[in-house]
């Protein structure tokens, strides 16, 4: 590490101002991430338990395994199927809901970051973060476009 621990006055002056404001941003975001992850994992776990409760043969014998590995078992692949599955209380619909919450967590983090940088009047980082959010949303749109082109 060499002189990594030496205090460099020049660096300190430039860095302190940025760090003090960033600290609050980081703590708020970490709190947000934790809530999102715990929520999604509770839903995923509940959905997994429900799946095994609804399919007792999954616990008893190996008949269903090949189908699960190859994806021949049904699970919600669209919003309509997901809503139907949730209404019927299907385990895999609940798992998918939890996974959607999990995927949404980093997206929400980027969204909240924009607001915090705006509050700090850091225009450059509002623009940077907004660009990241725009790219994220574009990726979801492109994923859907690919789905339509491929015909599901």
């Amino acid at each position, binding site marked *: 590490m060499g002189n990594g621990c030496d205090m460099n006055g020049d660096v300190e002056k430039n860095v302190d101002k*940025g760090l003090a404001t960033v600290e609050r941003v980081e703590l708020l975001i*970490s709190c947000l991430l934790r809530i999102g*992850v715990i929520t999604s994992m509770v839903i995923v776990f509940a959905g997994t338990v429900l799946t095994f409760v609804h399919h007792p043969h999954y*616990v008893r014998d190996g008949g269903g395994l090949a189908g699960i590995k190859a994806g021949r078992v049904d699970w919600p692949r669209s919003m309509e199927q997901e809503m139907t599955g949730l209404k019927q209380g299907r385990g895999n619909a609940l798992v998918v809901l939890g996974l959607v919450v999990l995927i949404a967590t980093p997206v929400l983090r980027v969204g909240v970051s924009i607001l915090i940088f705006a509050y700090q009047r850091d225009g450059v980082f509002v623009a940077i973060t907004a660009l*990241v959010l725009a790219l994220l949303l574009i990726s979801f749109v492109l994923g859907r476009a*690919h789905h339509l082109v491929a015909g599901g």
Partner: protein
Amino acid sequence: MLDHTTPLIFALFIFGCSLVAGFLGSLLGLGGGIIIVPVLTLVLGVDFRYAAGASLVSVIATSSGAAAAYVKEHLTNLRVAMFLEIGTTAGAITGGLIAGIIQPRWLYVLFGLMLAYSAVAMFQKGRHVQGEAPRDRWADRLRLHGKYYDEAEGCEVSYRVAHSWTGLGLMYVAGIVSGLLGIGSGALKVTAMDLAMRLPIKVSSATSNFMIGVTAAASAGVYFARGDINPFIAAPVALGVLIGATAGSKMLGRLKSGAVRAVFLVVLIYIAGNMLYKGWHS
């Protein structure tokens, strides 16, 4: 392997593997995906698309779960992360588009070679005394420089960021790899931040862990729309990886940088060999 067991035992085995993958991934700034994809495909015979889809979900869980712990230790550089995420998300989109055109075997080979090179470069850096980081006007302007409290050294470490635009370009490449292979490509991110941008390895590990969630979310959106996220496989992977990652994130602050580097070197070489083998034989 495990062809004639019950889905319950299969799920529990995936959960166990994911636990270990999450622990190692968090400790090294990798997403855990690089470990779980070979286990799912080579060992358990899961369809590659589902392995990649489950891996992406686990990458998000790792990143988001461990980030909270990293942030409290002030190892994560949020400004660097946000700046570089422009590159990773753009790359993830590009990777998702190329995925439908190019043969994956060439990407395995390319990725294997790149990791092997990174491992050698990392090893050489570990042996030499670190020079003064060159001045980067853009890093000054965006206020990317930072500091953190090093528990092992027992003092505060200030650092300056260099080559921010090179870093952004490398992050674009890391994003492409993530979109193509369904991994967080944390190894590439850490290497770029460590070697090009001159961040301390603990900061680059924590910042990488913070960033891969956003990269993986961009990739996961595409996989989800295609129906390639299989809940039967993704559920035990996500749960296992998250618990493992939470345990791993509690250890990073207490390790000497040299120890992290040594473990990281071994893992890089192992993954490189794995990638090359897979590309050669597919």
